[in-house]
């Protein structure tokens, strides 16, 4: 799709500037120019599409739909809705209490709460532009699996008493749908896309910049020795390292791309990316206002375990 652009970049770097394709500087610059334009373009298109589609799936509609469904249907549907609905960690509290208020089981609520940030629009757009649709599909598929299974486990543990604030006894009123014309939805989606690009653009440039440096200057065997290969601790280490990186997902993912090209195993990379989006410290801090530390620890523990199992399985199969 971007072959034409790569030809222009290569012509500029290798003919106009006269750098050798074999040189570290030439290969790094070629990589940087090609990757930044490709990623920013795809980010804009994908974020715009996701934002537009999800304006038709407000969280309140999801809640009303999940109300009174069989738990198993609930887990699967909640995880699926997590892909398409908007999620911002500052709304995590009203969202959580709103689900509980509607008598949606705690485990089903967690299936949603795990899936929503993991399948956020930036992560999906970055994954698609860096790794292509196959890895994106694997990420989403296994992300859903983690959300469903972790939700079922949390649901089985009878943790309802660990919710510190009780929502009102009365079920939530069914809100009249706010009618928004398509034109307005498109404009809103575009405005949101620009805002988001402004927010993550610098991280993307920095991430690709560092990635380009590694691409050109750092030899592969160095990365294989430290980040890659067969070491048993690669997956757990990647999972733990992912926790503090939530706000920088857009900057970290280009690095992961380069690391996989240089020998990091795909399972380790998947674990790393899932940990970045699903295990976010700021979200945990916000949820601490309404959930006991025990429940948050179980939530993080179950999800982390699921992410690591996926990493191990992948590394074992894809070798």
């Amino acid at each position, binding site marked *: 799709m971007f072959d034409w652009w790569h030809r222009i970049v290569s012509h500029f770097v290798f003919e106009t500037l006269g750098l050798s394709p074999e040189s570290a500087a030439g290969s790094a610059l070629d990589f940087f120019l090609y990757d930044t334009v490709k990623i920013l373009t795809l980010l804009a298109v994908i974020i715009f599409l996701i934002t537009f589609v999800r304006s038709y799936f*407000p*969280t*309140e509609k999801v*809640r009303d739909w999940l109300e009174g469904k069989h738990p198993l249907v609930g887990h699967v549907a909640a995880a699926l809705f997590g892909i398409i609905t*908007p999620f*911002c960690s*500052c*709304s995590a*509290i*009203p*969202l959580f*209490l*709103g*689900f509980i*208020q509607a008598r949606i089981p705690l485990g089903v609520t967690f299936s949603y709460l795990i899936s929503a940030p993991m399948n956020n629009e930036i992560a999906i757009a970055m994954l698609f532009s860096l790794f292509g649709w196959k890895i994106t599909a694997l990420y989403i598929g296994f992300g859903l699996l983690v959300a469903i299974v972790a939700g079922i486990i949390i649901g089985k543990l009878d943790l309802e008493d660990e919710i510190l*604030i009780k*929502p*009102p006894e*009365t079920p*939530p*009123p*069914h*809100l009249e749908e*706010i009618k928004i014309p398509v034109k307005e939805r498109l404009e809103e989606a575009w405005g949101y896309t620009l805002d988001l690009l402004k927010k993550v653009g610098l991280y993307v440039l920095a991430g690709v910049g560092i990635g380009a440096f590694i691409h050109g200057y750092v030899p592969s065997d160095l990365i294989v020795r430290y980040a890659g290969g067969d070491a048993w601790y690669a997956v757990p280490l990647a999972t733990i390292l992912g926790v503090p990186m939530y706000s920088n997902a857009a900057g970290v993912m280009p690095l992961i791309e380069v690391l996989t090209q240089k020998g990091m195993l795909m399972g380790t990379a998947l674990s790393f990316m899932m940990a970045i989006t699903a295990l976010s410290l700021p979200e945990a801090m916000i949820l601490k206002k*309404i959930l006991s530390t025990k429940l948050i620890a179980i939530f993080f523990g179950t999800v982390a375990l699921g992410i690591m199992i996926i990493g191990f399985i992948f590394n074992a199969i894809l070798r």
Partner: protein
Amino acid sequence: MKIEILESGCVSCRSLEHNVREALAKSGIEAEVEVVEDLQRIMAYGVMRTPGLVVDGKVLSMGKNLTPDEIIGLLS
């Protein structure tokens, strides 16, 4: 007219309050403005995305930081 702004402490919640006051000043509409941070009251409206804008008990907007002009449009 009574305007309630439902918020849960995020940045866009605070700017909604600011924009509501700006909209009132700009349009000359008289209204009583209250910021609601009590979760029980937010839940009672069935709102799950903050900031929320409630006018005379009716939820008009959720999860959106409206501009002053958009707010004037909703109020009139």
